[in-house]
């Protein structure tokens, strides 16, 4: 029996992209709640607060992380996030979603444990559906 994802998280500074993904999630009813952070720093601050409260309902099940962002980029977020993730006692699936097709980036992503997959923009609606459905099994 499947359940719908409760909370997903997008960390991306491209507001157009975020709006479109939001729209797709709404239209396809892929998850109940979505939170958005414009850069790694904002997201990290959020997770640090969560860690002190340990309110599991506010922990997203899926994270879509962009790489190129101001203030704190995706790589730096990942460095800090790996520590936090282990303490959260909840499975979080993290996808990198970037427009970078630089092989160096793709290889680097493969070496990081907490990264499930590397998606190159543009993502398709089918991709998003598959990810959300996969998570619900």
């Amino acid at each position: 029996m499947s359940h719908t994802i409760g909370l997903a998280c997008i960390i991306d500074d491209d507001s157009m992209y975020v709006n479109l993904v939001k729209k797709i999630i709404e239209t396809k009813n892929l998850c109940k709640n979505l939170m958005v952070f414009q850069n790694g720093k904002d997201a990290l601050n959020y997770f640090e607060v969560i860690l002190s409260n340990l309110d599991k309902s506010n922990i997203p099940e899926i994270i879509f992380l962009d790489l190129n962002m101001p203030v704190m980029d995706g790589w730096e977020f990942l460095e800090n996030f790996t520590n936090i993730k282990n303490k959260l006692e909840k499975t979080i699936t993290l996808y990198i979603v970037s427009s970078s097709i630089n092989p160096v980036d793709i290889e680097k992503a493969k070496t990081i444990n907490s990264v499930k997959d590397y998606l190159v923009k543009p993502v398709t609606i089918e991709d998003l559906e598959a990810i959300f459905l996969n998570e619900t099994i």
Partner: protein
Amino acid sequence: MLQNELFNNVIRDLNTGYWELHVDPFKEIWSEKFYENLGFNKKELKSNIDYFLEHLIHKGDVDVFRDNFLNYRNNSINFKQHIKIKTKQGGYKLFRCATNDELPVNIKSEINLIFFFEVKLEPEQDISKDNFYYKETAQMTATGSWYVDFHKRKSYWDFETRRILEYPDDYIPSLKDSARYYAKDCRQQAADLFFNCAMAGTPFNTEIKMVTANKRVFWVRAIGKPVYNENKEIIGIRGVFQDIDDIKTKELRLEKSIDIIASQNSRLFNFAHIVSHNLRSHTSNLSLLVQLIEGIDDPQEKIGLIKEIKQISSSLNITIEHLNEIVAIHTNKDQEKKPIKFQDALNLVTSGIGQTIAVSQTKISADFSELEEINYIAAYLESVLLNLITNAIKYKHPDRNPVIEINTYIEDNKKYLKVSDNGRGIDMKLFKDKIFGMYKTFHYNKDAIGIGLFITKNQVESLNGSISVESEVDKGTTFIIEF
């Protein structure tokens, strides 16, 4: 007859004296040039071999020459020999003696001849053959030799060392002040080399900058090795200095152009990356939008989404404009440079953004007294100042009004512009490599675009300059441009 004429012409041109050896009667005839080269006239000397051996030839050469001469006269055995002959002034001149067959030119003569080719030497030189070749080599390769005598605490230079270091011939080098023969930034290196050679016997072979008597800095190859006495103690250092300034200057110029090419290459690569990345983010949004439109049935909602295309198209246009701006920098760099007063450029910039400066209560203090003007592309200088000033205002510290200090100066013959602010600063540990990248922003400002410093860097580098930054969070940021 013809042969004789040729022969006479040859020896006249050679400026060479000679003897004719006659069998009968038993005598030698000395040519006019022979007397002339020694400074005597005919009547002052007796032209026979015994007189020559006794009065004219140097004692050290007598025995060999007598044997050669007699062998030649009696048995026609040709010979070649260097001899020193006394001149009228009382000194000795060096001659190369040669007989008919030993001559480089083919002269056939009925009479046996001995030629005396004068070997010209510098007056202070010891008259010796080896010394002559040594000197030629030294001059042709611009290599001077030297010796440091630890026992006498003295250093000795040869003529060529004096020449390449532009000191007069009678200059006595100082061992105590020897540091001053080296360029300031090479003195430690020189001291280390000599110390190691003197103490540990480590020979050296290095390129180093020296200073001539006329304060000209130039590159030499310095080679030195220890000199030992019978007890295996180091008693001095012997070595050479070779003037390699031409080669080294070319090498350094080549290195510099390689650096420029490498930096241009990396900028091109960066640019290609930027083009790819920035265009992709728009096209991927466009493709996502199209998918969304296709998947929606409600016509009203579809129309709503089509409006988003307008938004993407305008962002795409802005990106393309930014890219054009950067391309323009590289095509504009051949524009004519003109002398521009820094103050004029600053006035133009501050009047253009007078409103912003007034509203933010920014104080700008400028001092261009050290360097008032520069040969530059006016539009670039204005753009650089504009970017740095607007950045300083945009990222001012929340607790204080912006204060911007601008000044110019010259250091080591290089021209600099320095712009410092008291703004919120940039965390250098996090952003050092990214400050000048495109679309890199480090603050939460809404109007941060991340294009200004990227353009500034491109403008400065397209004219072979460089820009660097120092910053501390909450203290401020300083940009230094080297022209």
